[in-house]
């Protein structure tokens, strides 16, 4: 059994990709893996406290049919899945300081799911295995 940290860089801010990331995080946390998440660019934007629940659309490859299937499938919002994952396991969610600066944000502007703000080197300090980029 591989018990290395599951490190995830979230770049995309569409609801389908964030949902996929949340499901992976919940699965890893359930199986006892530590999860280390770094939020950059549009993913960070989606974690703003006042935007988390808004419609972030889906990736372009979804097309009309895929977008419709995603909406119809429903299920819990990705933020709720991340919350459950944090509740059952060791899940750290860190905002990329470069993206924070670009948007002019402080940690107080973000959803409480986000633990803190990190530079890229601190992210890699905690990444003791491969890094997944979504």
């Amino acid at each position, binding site marked *: 059994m591989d018990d290395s940290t599951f490190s995830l860089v979230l770049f995309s801010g569409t609801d389908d990709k964030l949902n996929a990331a949340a499901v992976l995080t919940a699965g890893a946390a*359930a*199986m*006892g893996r530590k999860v280390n998440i770094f939020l950059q660019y549009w993913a960070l934007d989606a974690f703003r406290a006042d935007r988390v629940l808004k419609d972030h659309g889906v990736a372009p490859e979804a097309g009309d049919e895929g977008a419709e299937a995603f909406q119809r499938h429903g299920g819990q919002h990705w933020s709720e899945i991340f919350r*459950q994952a944090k*509740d059952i396991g060791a899940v750290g969610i860190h905002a990329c300081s470069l993206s924070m600066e670009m948007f002019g944000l402080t940690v107080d502007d973000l959803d409480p799911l986000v633990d803190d703000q990190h530079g890229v080197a601190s992210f890699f300090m905690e990444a003791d295995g491969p890094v997944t980029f979504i």
Partner: protein
Amino acid sequence: MTTVNIDRSIDARGMPCPGPLMSLIGAIREGELGDVIEVLSSDEGSKTDIPAWLEKSGHELVETVPDDGFMRFIVRKTR
């Protein structure tokens, strides 16, 4: 049909992956040692996820009962 007494039943039918597993984990955490928890799930992923999590976490899968379009997972909290 199972003969064990169910302490808590969770109807997670219609919930997509990983909803039913997350509900089970929540119920195990809230439950007492020895409690038997039943989870109803129509999510195909639960068929592998729930046994995998139980193996990892050390709780007991008492029984898996196929029903009409869903599965009943009977689980005992053992630690």
